[in-house]
């Protein structure tokens, strides 16, 4: 036994591989292999009631570019972009506020931000229903009662509802990375800027914002990608009327019995996400370089 250990010690790289083995195996069995199955299925023909017929075809990928589905892709993209923008607008000031609290208070603030998210996502989304419902929702009931509006606002079953739900759901994912960069920000840089007579907005635009950019990029990606693939939020708050691509994909499997087409849609979406991620990363790193 001890021999084996010394033998292992002498071979550092083997040791590293052994340490890697469990996670690599896990990833292979539960991630790579299923993904490969999805890829294969996307080139096959559908069985009438689910399953696949082993006959090679590119038809599924051709169908993805049917205007019907392209339109839904576009809508999902649009909703995801708006969600990212809104979480950034709401999240940045919050992150800044928390980061500028005295050291001891910050933990409490972060905790306060996280506590609501200990509840299951589905439950929280259903909770929004009681607020957003058109005729029996708390928001509309209150506004009507106060006499501020005479007709209920269209808060449910449309893009507004979906974006409200997504912004709420992903806000901490935007706040936390920005907070992390702002917290580490060197205060003396701000003092230096002000010593050089930079105005408040200028300090923000020239010093704080560029330095917090890695956090903004990380936060935006953390929000954008899950928003693009969202399917619980549109299914519940969209009332089944306003769909995103995630709903179309889940429908292919759970209702339409069209596994190959669902697989093809999934793959195209992954490709879109990958490209978006790479482009985004590329663009911002260039910018960073310029700022530095």
């Amino acid at each position, binding site marked *: 036994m001890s021999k084996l250990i010394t033998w292992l010690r002498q071979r550092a790289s083997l040791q590293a591989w052994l340490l890697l083995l469990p996670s690599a195996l896990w990833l292979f069995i539960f991630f790579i292999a299923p993904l490969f199955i999805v890829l294969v299925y996307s080139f096959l023909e559908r069985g009438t009631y689910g399953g696949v017929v082993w006959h090679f075809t590119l038809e599924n990928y051709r169908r993805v570019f049917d205007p*019907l589905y392209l339109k839904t892709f576009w809508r999902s993209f649009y909703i995801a972009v708006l969600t990212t923008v809104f979480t950034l607008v709401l999240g940045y000031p919050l992150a800044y506020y928390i980061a500028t609290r005295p050291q001891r208070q910050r933990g409490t603030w972060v905790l306060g931000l996280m506590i609501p998210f200990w509840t299951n996502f589905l439950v929280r989304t259903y909770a929004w229903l009681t607020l957003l419902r058109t005729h029996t929702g708390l928001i509309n009931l209150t506004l009507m009662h106060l006499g501020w509006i005479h007709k209920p606002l269209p808060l449910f079953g449309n893009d507004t509802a979906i974006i409200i739900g997504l912004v709420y759901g992903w806000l901490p994912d935007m706040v936390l990375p920005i907070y992390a960069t702002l917290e580490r920000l060197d205060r003396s840089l701000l003092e230096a800027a002000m010593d050089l007579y930079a105005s408040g907005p200028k300090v923000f635009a020239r010093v704080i914002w560029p330095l917090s950019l890695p956090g903004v990029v990380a936060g935006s990606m953390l929000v954008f990608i899950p928003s693009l693939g969202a399917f619980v939020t549109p299914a519940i708050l969209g009332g089944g009327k306003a769909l995103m691509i995630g709903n179309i994909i889940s429908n292919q499997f*759970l209702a339409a019995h069209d596994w190959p087409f669902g697989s093809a849609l999934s793959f195209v979406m992954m490709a879109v996400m990958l490209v978006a991620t790479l482009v985004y990363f590329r663009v911002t790193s260039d910018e960073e370089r310029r700022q530095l």
Partner: protein
Amino acid sequence: MKQRLVLLVSLLVVMGLLLAACGTPKQQATQAPKPAATEAAAQPTKAAQPTQAPQPTEAPKEVQPAKEIVFYNWSEYIDPKVYELFEKETGIKVVEDNFSSNEELLAKLQGGATGYALIVPSDYTVKIMIDQGMLAPLDRDKIPNLKNIAPRFRNVYYDPGNKYCVPYQWGTTGIGYLSDKVKKPESWSVFFDPDPNAPWYGRMTMLDDAREAFAAALVYLGYDINTTDEKQLEEAKQALIRAKAALSGYDSDTYEDLLASGENLIAHGWNGDFLQAMEDNENIAYTIPKEGGVIWVDNVCIPASATPEQKVAAEMFLNFILRPDIGAMISEYNYYATPNKAAEAKLDADFLNDPSVYPPKDVLDKLQFIKPVGKAESLYQRMWDEVKAAP
């Protein structure tokens, strides 16, 4: 820094992929007990014999029933007391899991979900499942109470002679409404020719179910609800898109509650669901429009993937729910009509005379069964996608 960013990016991509994969049916992890390892291998697999009906397993005479079985059912479809009584009598625990459409049930089983001892497909789905070899034939000797089934449910088109399934409950698809807020909808035109000035405009739901939604539109247009004619389906699609503008949403799970709360005023749905919701709001009423509607029979069946031990336990349960007292208990709970002739004797005359539960002859004549449409299935689904994606 660069390296860390790369790591971060790859992490995000992985997360995105996982999300994208959400729609993939997963292997269902259920608490089904392990087979006693003796004869489990005798179970036929659907992959091996796709068209041929699975043979009854050649289990030895004494297969011990499983201690626990999983019942894959529609939600709120059985009185939980039935499970308690059954467990008290037999020691077998029944665990319930729910689905919300026939398509979902079919997709889960096709996706390889195992562990279910009992499932509840509707008529047309039973036909599909039998044709696909997904159901295990019943051992009729173990279910003597099958004699309680009313004659007209014995030779149903989808399963002549109840070889695979026990008829569970039957009902109709029509329109529920709040009788204090709107007048009785006489025609499907409330949905398909909506009046933008009506108080119910924007306060209606339709079932989130391609076949049911198309059936409503096809009935309204005077066509066969199982048509495979593309022109007729196109017309139905246009009608559904017109209706969409007047809907607050598509909903198959909570529509009756939304009617009870007053959020919506009119809903397309199943009769018993509305009757259940009357407990919360007595103004809820149910009607079948003059053009007609859908009639359906839900059935309890045993999937071919059940182990012999699960099958034995499942057959005991089937025999149990066919008892007159239990059959009556189920109808009293879910407000759907029972195909169990013997159970009717135990039900209130009020219930048996309720036209919402037992439609009169002239209405019954206007009801149609949804049937499998084979290859046209993809046409229905494609058009349903178009309805869903319409602005």
